[in-house]
């Protein structure tokens, strides 16, 4: 049975939350609801006199199009490969940052630099580096001088993924480091006394205890990676079948001004993101509150 005091505390808590909730509703719920409404209509800014409610036909147009599925596959491919590489590299960097004996501050700061660079700028830097005219990459040993990296689908993917990994591994490392510091060092000492090898300590102590941090880091990065836009937009503009679903949405909304179709794409992206989060939270038991850095 709840006491009077608990109830009044609850009420106060709700009142304190209210401004934030209202702000959230205004800036997130309203655009989402508006996008859903648009996605059920035939709205095209270039044809202001036409349009009207069309039910789910925008969704059937998107889902029955080969383009959506190609782009969906591309997005998932970029997401899975880049997040996998980031996890391994991020873990290694987190361990280095954790163990660094001297220059700890310098190590941590320098690792974070790529994350501080604007994605568009980073994408341009990588593009120039790999361009056959201006880049240094083709002058490296073992790489043919004439290699046109953005002239083929898989070489384009390779550069896009490398740029993504370079840019966001520090974020992954930071989240993992936060998990690493919460592990009690006595556990390692005890394990060492019992004769556990370094690998055993990593797999039996570090990994299980870091599971919440790893899941949260993976969740954040997967959600981000699914919405990949800037790097592809700068490097190929989606040519040679390197398009992601975000670029597809952009093409419908901004290039064609077809708000109905574009909103349908956006809503589908939202549903995908929601499903990814659902699988992580329910399926793998990621606990966002616990794994958050400093939480």
């Amino acid at each position, binding site marked *: 049975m709840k006491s009077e005091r608990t109830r009044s505390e609850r009420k106060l808590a709700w009142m304190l939350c209210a401004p934030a909730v209202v702000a959230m509703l205004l800036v997130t719920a309203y655009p989402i609801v508006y996008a859903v409404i648009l996605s059920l209509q035939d709205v095209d800014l270039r044809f202001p006199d036409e349009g009207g409610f069309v039910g789910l036909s925008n969704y059937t147009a998107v889902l029955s199009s080969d383009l959506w599925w190609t782009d969906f596959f591309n997005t998932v491919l970029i997401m899975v490969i880049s997040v996998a590489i980031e996890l391994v590299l991020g873990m290694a960097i987190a361990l280095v940052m954790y163990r660094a004996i001297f220059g700890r501050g310098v190590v941590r700061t320098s690792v974070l630099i790529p994350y501080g660079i604007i994605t568009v700028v980073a994408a341009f830097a990588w593009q120039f580096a790999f361009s056959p005219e201006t880049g240094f990459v083709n002058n490296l040993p073992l790489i043919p001088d004439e290699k046109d990296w953005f*002239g083929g689908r898989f070489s384009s993917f390779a550069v896009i993924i490398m740029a993504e990994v370079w840019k966001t591994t520090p974020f992954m490392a930071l989240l993992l480091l936060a998990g690493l510091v919460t592990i009690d060092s006595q556990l390692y000492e005890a394990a060492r006394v019992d004769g556990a090898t370094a690998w055993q300590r990593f797999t039996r102590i570090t990994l299980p205890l870091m599971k919440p941090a790893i899941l949260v880091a993976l969740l954040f990065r997967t959600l981000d990676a699914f919405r990949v836009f800037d790097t592809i937009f700068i490097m190929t503009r989606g040519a040679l079948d390197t398009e992601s679903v975000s670029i597809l949405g952009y093409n419908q909304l901004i290039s064609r001004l077809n708000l109905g179709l574009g909103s349908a794409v956006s809503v589908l992206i939202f549903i995908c993101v929601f499903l990814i989060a659902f699988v992580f939270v329910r399926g793998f038991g990621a606990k966002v509150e616990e794994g958050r850095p400093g939480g």
Partner: protein
Amino acid sequence: MEESLKSSWAPRAASLALAALAAVALAACGGSSNGSEPRELTFFVAIQPGGTIEEVSKRCSEESNGKYTITPEFLPTDASQQREQLVRRLGAEDSSIDIVGMDVIWTGEFANAGWVEEWTGAEKKAATENVFPNVIETASFEDKLYAAPFNTNTQLLWYRKDLVKQPPETWDEMIEEAEGLKEAGSIQVQANRYEGYMVLVNALIESAGTEILSGPEEVDLEQGPTEKALEVIGKLANGGAAPPSLSTSDEDTARLGFEAGESAFMTNYTFAYASAKEEAPDVFKNMGYARFPEVEPGTPSKPPLGGFNLAVSSYSENKDVAFEAATCLANKDSQKTAVELDGLPPSRSDLYTDKTVTSAYPGFAGLVKESIEASGPRPTTPAYQDVSLAVQRSLHPPDKIDPEDTESVYDELKSNVEKAVKREGLL
């Protein structure tokens, strides 16, 4: 503390106020003839590196005698990015745009959406006087004029006189000749997946004797000629005349490749001449020019047509003076400034014997004129963006076209364009 702040601020504020008053008084004396403030007009237009826009805006503001002042607001150099910025503002009914520098391909879209005003009466007459008929066509939609033609543009064939004796008449000849060269045996074109590729494809299809659309919603694309045009692209892309980064090439990579001496041929806009003169004197010495090659031997080619037309925004609060200002910005003097500072071809045919033009295009002013007169403009339709995206998607990368068997690509192109004019499906 507060007291001292106040005391030091008071005289300063007073002197500032006085200065402001004096400035207003001065402006009132020296400014307009009719006693009112000049109207502020904002001119949204693509940046021109030579400074044409600043110059003509300044001159027209001065000539208006205090009636208006034109402030240019620059858009990026990339045509798609220019359009994206404009449509976002116009779609939101932004009244801060008065005059729009409109690419020739946007007319149908902007007019149909009701974003730009129709030109009529004396202003229409002034805007179209002596202008090439196919340029007027690019500023019109459903037989109404929506903009004053400013500069136009066309592509020529640039070639190396030291490697090629006689410029080729047809694409087939050119590809064969390039493949036979020991050095610099490539042809520079624009074939990245962007609007420039659409320019190339459209010019080839037009030159082959058909067109992409015969009306805003009627797809033409007659099979025989279209397949002939596709065969040219496939042959170029899959043969020895293709530069290494053909599928990511644009106007600038083409120019760079030609200037670096890698290519004997290039199709590109007139800026290529001044650029080579400046950047690559060795190549420039042997730089020849000719008309855009034919696709079908004996059928005259229809070269690409580009350029900007000036429109008045429907959301402008100064439409009356905006028409006047746009008329000035597009007049003879302004077009001369554009050719002088930025090498942009005038849209008025009578200027091609003028000294400014003949000195900007030494020896080939007549060729530029001929090329514009013969050009095959890109289709006019409100769904232009859809059509262009559909063409780019169907034909990119260019080496996907098998020159021996163009039928499957033709079918794909035709069905995609048919869907695009109806604005169906994803693109």
